[in-house]
């Protein structure tokens, strides 16, 4: 569960990215954070993963107050998440397989078990045949799917994605939407920051709509 209560985030220099934001995302929900660029979507995701800390208010993830975590505890908080970045942050000095292996190395998985999981994750996103390729040789859609494989390989309870369909055509975006839906169906909490209305219409998620850093609507999932 992710709970924001009365969260303010002011950056040095006085820019106020979030103002008095409160909401709750229950476990196993599919939630979209929408709004124009600069509305505070990315800041919201950064607060959840302790990349940023709230100026005031509290952010609670799985019972932990993220804003008050000791630096030493932050890595362990982040292991609850699967993160998909806007710029993907793939590592081009290693192949597809090793990219997906990274989270398992960090979590200290035994090698054989890790290899099995990497293959399962690659299979899930349809990249099993490309495990020896360098990510630079993959298409934009394939790179995005690789990023997803890396995010889910350690079976996180929460999947966070920042504009995952930003650079994709409709077909690929739909394909990706299907993937997110399938993760959600097996109980993963999925939070996606996006302004892709097409995707929103297709997946019918719960919505958290932001405008200029303020929450304008938190609607139930049955309204697109």
């Amino acid at each position: 569960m992710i709970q924001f209560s009365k969260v303010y985030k002011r950056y040095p220099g006085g820019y106020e990215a979030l103002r008095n934001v409160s909401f709750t995302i229950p476990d196993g929900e599919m939630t979209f954070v929408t709004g124009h660029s600069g509305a505070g979507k990315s800041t919201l995701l950064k607060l959840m993963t302790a990349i940023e800390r709230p100026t005031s208010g509290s952010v609670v993830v799985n019972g932990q107050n993220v804003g008050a975590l000791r630096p030493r505890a932050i890595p362990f908080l982040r292991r609850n998440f699967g993160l998909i970045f806007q710029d993907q942050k793939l590592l081009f000095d290693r192949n597809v397989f090793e990219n997906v292996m990274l989270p398992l190395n960090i979590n200290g998985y035994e090698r054989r078990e890790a290899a099995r999981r990497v293959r399962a994750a690659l299979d899930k996103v349809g990249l099993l045949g490309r495990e020896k390729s360098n990510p630079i040789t993959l298409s934009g859609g394939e790179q995005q799917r690789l990023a997803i494989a890396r995010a889910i390989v350690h079976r996180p309870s929460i999947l966070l994605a920042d504009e995952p369909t930003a650079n994709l055509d409709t077909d690929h975006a739909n394909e990706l939407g299907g993937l997110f839906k399938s993760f959600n169906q097996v109980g993963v909490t999925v939070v996606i920051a996006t302004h892709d209305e097409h995707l929103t219409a297709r997946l019918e998620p719960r919505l958290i709509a932001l405008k200029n850093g303020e929450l304008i609507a938190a609607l139930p999932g049955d309204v697109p």
Partner: protein
Amino acid sequence: MRTWLTQHSRTLSSTVARLARAPVASLLNIGVIGIALALPVGLYVGLVNLQALARDLATEPQLSIFLTLDAARTDVARIEDRLRRHPGVRKFSHVPRDQALADLKASTGMGDIVGSLGRNPLPDAFVVDGGDSSPQTLERLRDEFSDWPKVGHVQLDSAWANRLAAALRLGRIAVLLLATLLAFALIAVTFNTIRLQILTQRQEIEVSKLIGATDPFIRRPFLYYGAVLGLAGGLAAWAIVWAVVLLLNHGLADLSQLYGTRLELRHLVATDSVSVLGFAAWLGWFGAWLSVGRHLAEIDPQ
């Protein structure tokens, strides 16, 4: 525990793999460290050898009493008598000046030169063994004998050994200073190497931090790299010194054959070798630790 071991062994193997991936750069680094370490280690080996040599030579320090050239037979007899009755003298022998001249003629092949001298330039001499061979006792005896009549000069054989020991002490300090300076050089080399690595792996570090890597996890490969680099440099230094000693021993074998003695340089003993390798690895680790501490904090994911 198992996870911990897995992570460490995996880090070690990937570190060695990383060294092997850039063989030229790695070899150059190892070479720089090896040469820097070989200097003090080589000097140390030289010192150890000199010390061993000094120990061999200075086993029985003796006093040589040289009389003045105008000493008559009666003077010689008087001194002989005094030495016999002296409680601090264990045994002594008299080397008459004629015999000394004859020995000189026979031993060094300078017969012609010696023969051309108008008169015998050598004095009568006594070689004295002190009761005990501590430097203080010997020095006291030397001062005492010097005051006797018709005694020209008293030579303490251990004096040069003392001087050598002092020189060796000085050498030891020089080695220590050199080692300290070059240890700094080694730390600087690893510091810089690690800094470059952190820069090139910036993105990996950033991503790793974002997906839950702890600081020790991120630091570990760099520390391993530093230690392995230092260890390899230490091995290189050891090999260089070993090779130099081997080469010198070849030359020494010829030389000592000519002199009819046996001179041979000793290699580093096992414990010293282990210390050198351990110290080199530690220096590499320390340089990496400094570098990682300084540069890793600069990478904060956004």
